[in-house]
């Protein structure tokens, strides 16, 4: 880089570029928050769904599973588990409830969390709400 391109020019590109693109990012963010009501299934967020989300967090479910593709890659995607389980809330509850306490010899197994019936229902409702988010056609198929 010869003298035609000086340090102060480089500095100005850094400050100017960063500020410009941060502002552009804020504009896009603002537009996103205005578009979200049509996409994010917010009408389905009941107190029970919120409770389910808190339980999802307080048991670190994302430490094994993905939800809309984000999380850990040790256990199945859950953004569409409702559909995969035949649109059955009972099937989700039954699965979580029936995990063996000491696991399955040699294989991966979800821990037994000893949830109450209310908690199980809340978690299932949270997953049902999540499955209603418009995720641009993702995942590619029912297997997640």
């Amino acid at each position: 880089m010869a003298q035609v391109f000086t340090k102060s020019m480089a500095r100005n590109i850094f400050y100017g570029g960063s500020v410009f693109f941060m502002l552009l990012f804020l504009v896009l963010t603002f537009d996103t928050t205005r578009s979200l009501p049509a996409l994010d299934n917010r009408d389905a967020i009941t107190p029970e769904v919120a409770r389910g989300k808190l339980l999802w967090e307080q048991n670190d479910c994302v430490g094994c599973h993905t939800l809309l593709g984000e999380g850990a890659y040790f256990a199945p995607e859950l953004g569409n588990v409702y559909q995969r389980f035949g649109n059955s809330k009972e099937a989700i509850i039954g699965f979580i409830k029936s995990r063996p306490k000491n696991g399955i010899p040699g294989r991966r197994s979800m821990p037994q969390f000893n949830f109450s019936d209310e908690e199980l229902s809340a978690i299932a409702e949270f997953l049902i709400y999540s499955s209603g988010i418009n995720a641009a056609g993702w995942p590619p198929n029912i297997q997640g």
Partner: protein
Amino acid sequence: MQYKSQAVAMPYFIAAIILFVAQILFGLIMGLQYVIGDFLFPEIPFNVARMVHTNTLIVWLLFGFMGAAYYLVPEEAETELFSPWLAKLMFWIFFLAAGATVAGYLLVPYATLAELTGNELFPTMGREFLEQPTITKIGIVIVALAFLFNVGMTVLKGRKTVVNLVLLIGLLGLAVFFLFAFYVPDNLVLDKFFWWWVVHLWVEGVWELILGAILAFVLIKVTGVDREVIEKWLYVIIAMALITGIIGTGHHFFWIGAPEYWQWWGSIFSALEPLPFFMMTVFAFNMVNRRRRNHPNRVATLWALGTAVMAFLGAGVWGFLHTLSPVNYYTHGTQLTAAHGHMAFYGAYVMIVLTIISYAMPLLRGRTAANSNKSQVLEMWSFWLMTIAMVFITLFLTGAGILQVYLQRVSETPQPFLVVQDQIHLFYWLREVAGVVFLIGLICYIASFFVGNKDPEHTLEVSNTTT
């Protein structure tokens, strides 16, 4: 070491290395759980091992960044640190908080930890990488503020160099964007959207400024190239990093319920994200080729070149591999993501912290310029063992990822997740073997601090130095 107060960096570096060891051990546990599903179950379930693996990584990198700042800011500013005792106090607060948090993860179920720390009053737990109890997060903010105050005051009272300024902007951004860790709305889409303001704007944004500043500092020291030249490069690199990286955040918004225009913004800008990393590689090799001195700390130079190359491969190439939305539609949330994550973190952030430790530690331990030949050779072994192991970890996870994508998402008869996992065991086994090699490299690294301490060092060969 030119200023006495630079010595506060030492405990930060030592803590970083201790947590690095914990990170790798838990990585090996997880790697084994991928193939022996019930390994340590139910005592250490996978998610707990993963929290320890990722959280210790983040915290040891933060220790490394702080140590780097405490070391290089006084030297750049040509003045003593504003408050060495505050730096020492913050070290102990941070170290004990990190230790207590890891102990909490391991000793009680996560839900119990949430209950004990009153998570329901102010819920912030249970999101990827931000699993720390709310009280720990508040502790992180306090430590970060005290640290920024200390470093900022040092810069203010001393010489203002570009390296210091860029480092400070990076650290300030780190603190500011961390505040989004406290925003956890019930709306999952909003939650995810702003979660990335911490995670992406850290690692593909402001952390790159920290990386650039540390690399520039070490290159000034080991090559003796004129500071003006290096600073110009630094500005151009970080300009490109933010120009591409900020809107590049959009590559995380493809499939989480955000508007579909993010597929364009995210694909285009993140496709340009390899550029600053490529420039960093060119920069590092250029400076070393134009060096005006042969610094006796050869291994620090090796780390500096290594971080530039590996950051380009891991963050740049492996990031580009799956960043275009039509590709990402199939690869999102698979082992390909894990492959990229491993090499990017190692190349960009692990290696830059090891670079500054490699440069600064001999000086902090009272040597004139470098470790003995014996120690440096062992450290070079550790460099190659860890780096090659990481290349193979990445390649094996990439193999696993491609197969996973095909079997689960592309083939005409898509198979269930766990059925697919069984079919890619071989790659997971190979990854675990590479992980063991990484651990051997890490053992060599630690051993390099203890060998040849009584041997003489090379004398500094100086020619035409101006810095």
